[in-house]
């Protein structure tokens, strides 16, 4: 059986590792991108079922990448969870304005992240 594909756009190796290990025991298939531009390119070529987008990325910010993907009809419908390290009131609104389906602030609990992923794209 082929699981659902999740794209994680993140530049920090340890955070990538957490999600990699978190999803290793599930049926989700993880693909990774380490900057905003690469994230957009990968999303357009792979068309994943869900995108986890860090807000602070090299080359292109997570918010701008989200806006770009929302503007493209091919990716416009893909759910995007925006992850930020600014636990501030304004960021949630900015993420929503950019087109995020959900918002999670760092440090997030892996357990909660998994719950949120399962809610948006059930495993099977």
């Amino acid at each position: 059986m082929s699981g659902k594909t999740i794209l994680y756009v993140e530049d920090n190796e340890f955070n990538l590792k957490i999600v990699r290990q978190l999803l290793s025991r599930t049926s989700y298939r993880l693909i990774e991108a380490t900057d905003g531009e690469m994230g957009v390119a990968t999303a357009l070529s792979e068309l994943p079922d869900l995108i986890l987008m860090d807000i602070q990325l090299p080359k292109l910010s997570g918010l701008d990448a989200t806006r770009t993907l929302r503007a493209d009809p091919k990716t416009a419908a893909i759910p995007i969870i925006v992850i930020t390290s600014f636990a501030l009131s304004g960021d949630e609104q900015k993420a929503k304005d950019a087109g995020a389906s959900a918002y999670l602030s760092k440090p997030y609990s892996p357990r909660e992240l998994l719950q949120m992923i399962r809610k948006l794209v059930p495993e099977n």
Partner: protein
Amino acid sequence: MRWVAGLKVSVHAKLLAGFLIVTLFFIGMGVMSLQTIATMSSQGQLLDDAHERVHWSQEIQHALALQMNFTAMALLLRNEATVESILRENNRFSNTLARLEKAAQAEEIQLIQRIRAAQGEALTTVADIANLVRDGKIEDAMRLQLSKEYPIYLQIEGLVNQLVKHERDKMDRLRSSVAAANRKTLLLLASSAVVLILLALLLGFVISWSFILPVQEAHGFLGQVAKGNFAATISVPNRDEFGVLAERMNQMSRELHRLDESQRRGSEELKRLNEQLLRASKAKSEFLANMSHELRTPMNAILGFVEMLLDDIYGEIPPQFKEPLTDIQVNGKHLLNLINDVLDLSKIEAGRMELAVSEYSVQDIVDTLKASLHSLSREKGLEFVAVAQADIPLACGDGKRITQCLTNLAGNALKFTREGRVEVRVERQGDMLLYRVSDTGIGIPKDQIENVFAEFRQVDATITREFGGTGLGLSITKKFVEMHGGRIWVESEPGKGSTFFFEIPLRVDGGKPA
């Protein structure tokens, strides 16, 4: 005026000199008056004398007339008594003439001598006539009288008349000269009085204006100084006390100018330093904000791995690892709270904190509070009550920040209370919401109440060790309350407990409740 002002003499001396000049003139006038009086009195004496002389000359006239009369009578009566009368009148004539001669002038003396000579001749003739009468030669006597004596008498009469006229003329001249002198004196006195008055006025005017001018200058100058023009100077021609005063004023102005300049420089320096300080402070806050972000990424990894370990993502962990892993998790979360607080505060200080204003329900806030503090209160065995007044309408503000404030206050209350209860109440008071958090904890000493909202402050260091906490919670709470346009305060009694209050507008957008 300027000349008087410029005299290098004291004000005192100038005033004395002015008065002295007027007084001297006055004395001069007095002396002149006395002299006039003396002159007038001596002229009166002269007039009296002249009058007397006129009188005497008239008496001579009279004596001559009687003499002529008695001579005529002697011819008719032929008695000795009448002859004697002639001699008596002759004596009177001679005596009076002698008196007149005493104080006579040259021309008068000449006249008098001529009279005397004629009189001597007349007397000789009278004696001859008397002898002829005595001898009974009446015819001869009468002839002699007519031919010789009578012409002599006429001659004497002419001379005497001349004398009388002379004396009278002299008296008239004297009288008119006295009158002229009196008029002149009067005129002199009157004009002196006028000059004296004018002089007094002039001196008064000049001296007083030589004082008034510098005073006016000083008035203008002090007005300038009072307005803050410390570069002003005063210039007066005076070289007296006013001159000294003006120089002192200039010294004062120079000193003020110097002080003003240095104060201005100081304040500019201060302003520059202050700007530097502000820039430095802002840079510090931005650095802290960035640092906090940089700290969160590794924190995310640490807490993420620990949670996954505890969740058995890597397989079941040995039971003896559970406790140390939980300790790592608790301390990691505490560290995260610290980072969050520092981030909030530095954002507020950098002026980058903004409220996300929207509608919120007070009941939701109270429910969130109860959920997040439930386990802590149960662990400490404390009664925890959180109630919102039932009929509060939807409020408007940053609900998340208000929850943070209330959680900070209630969390502190639970931390600092060993036994008893913590109570949270929210009520509406008109357009305001009053939040109240009371505890039965250790309380705050009176002298430290002022400090509780300051950053990094706790009542004392031992409490930090015993109860934990960053010391940032209250100052962040205060800032958020103030950003909502509210205020925060505390009432406390050490040993009995504290009550924290904060009051914020029901709707920070100023609109009416929905």
